[in-house]
């Protein structure tokens, strides 16, 4: 597996701009088993779930989330089969739409660190009606010793750090998204 090259400093072509996913993606983008990176109940399977809220605290029923993550050992699995899962191959990719109450659910495993000493996290891309372009963030695992050394987290004001760290409970991991307000999720721009 070869990682993508670093972004060029002087790109010759201008990027195509994004646009909102709109309200009517529900018949096109979500797919059967999209949220199931692994089968529920297998060893190591966890629930990754949460609620998406707008600036008034109202749950958002028309949002879409995608995750991309390494396996439990930190290996990046670049294999097809995310759209047509065989039930055995972990591909690292998942897609989930929010339900009427603004909640989403994935079944996955906890990612491992991709390098020694690195803080493990799940990469998240977020789409919604009303959001004019997609947003990126990370879902860090709670209580991991490497969190203290993570360059992104340590550069954040302490009151914003928590928005990128999942909460562990009896089922797995909870990660809520707030688009505005005190608990506004930190979104990333990639240099």
């Amino acid at each position, binding site marked *: 597996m070869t*990682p*993508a090259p670093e*972004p*060029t400093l002087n*790109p*010759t*072509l201008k*990027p*195509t*701009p*994004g*646009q*909102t*996913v*709109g*309200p*009517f*993606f529900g*018949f*096109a*983008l979500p797919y059967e088993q999209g949220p199931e990176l692994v089968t529920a109940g297998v060893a190591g399977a966890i629930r990754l779930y949460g609620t998406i809220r707008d*600036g*008034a605290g*109202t749950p*958002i029923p028309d949002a879409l989330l*995608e995750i*991309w*993550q390494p396996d439990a050992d930190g290996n*990046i699995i*670049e*294999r*097809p*089969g*995310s759209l*047509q899962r065989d039930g055995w191959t972990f*591909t690292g*990719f998942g897609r989930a739409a929010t339900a009427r109450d603004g909640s989403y659910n994935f079944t996955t495993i906890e990612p491992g660190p*991709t390098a020694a000493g*690195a803080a493990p*996290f799940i*990469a998240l*891309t977020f*789409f919604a009606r*009303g*959001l*004019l*372009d*997609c*947003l*990126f963030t990370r879902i860090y695992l709670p209580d991991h010793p490497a969190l203290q050394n993570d360059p992104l987290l340590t*550069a*954040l004001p*302490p009151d914003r750090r928590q928005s990128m760290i999942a909460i562990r409970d009896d089922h797995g991991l909870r990660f809520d998204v707030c*688009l*505005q307000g005190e608990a*506004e999720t930190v979104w*990333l*721009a*990639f*240099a």
Partner: protein
Amino acid sequence: MSASPSQQRILPSQQQISREIGELAAAPARGVPQPLLDYPPYRSSLLRHPTKALRHAVPELIERTAPVFGERDIDAVEADLTIQHSGEPLGERMVVTGRVVDADGRPVRGQLVEIWQANAAGRYLHNHDQHHAPIDPNFTGVGRCLTDDDGQYRFITIKPGPYPWRNHDNAWRPAHIHFSLFGRAFTERLVTQMYFPADPLMPYDPISQSITDPAVLARLIARYDHTLSMPETMTGYRWDIVLSGSRRTAMEPEEDQP
């Protein structure tokens, strides 16, 4: 769709929305390479845009890679939206094709391209789309394909119709096809909309006009290509897509630095 009198009083007028579009087009933010996320003329964005600056991050290894899709995931017939049912869909049959490349012009190969759209009458096959236009029993409006070795995608479909929505009084979306693309890195993920040349509805549309630089917005407009049109069969449109993971800029000064 006919709105009730009370709704018409509540909804802003096109004149009001057009005034807001004009003010923002002339504002200092003009020229940024992406849509403004805080764009009040698109009323649904009011409570759904980040209010704090995006944080700059160096992509980690997982973010410099991307999910892989392959033949296993896609059936070849999914690229032809006109053969998914027993009958012929209504409307202008067309081919939409183009190349997906990176910032250096290199083809982005073997990548998943997903599209979805309204039918020729401007109606989505979605139970929340209840506007007064017919559903076409022979058109779902969903397609998928993988880019080839030259980064090319190719769909056969029906030209979508414009449709009304309730952002403001007499609000109509220009005809468009939604596109979803992956890249070589997760940070290149792109969902966007392809528009058609010389669409008279574009200036009135706050979703497209959220891209305040006309040169940037022009990158979302396909070009009619007569060499793609096929006799007795369909018209042809070409639209190329550039994926680049460094496509974001901060929306405001980073006031929350520690």
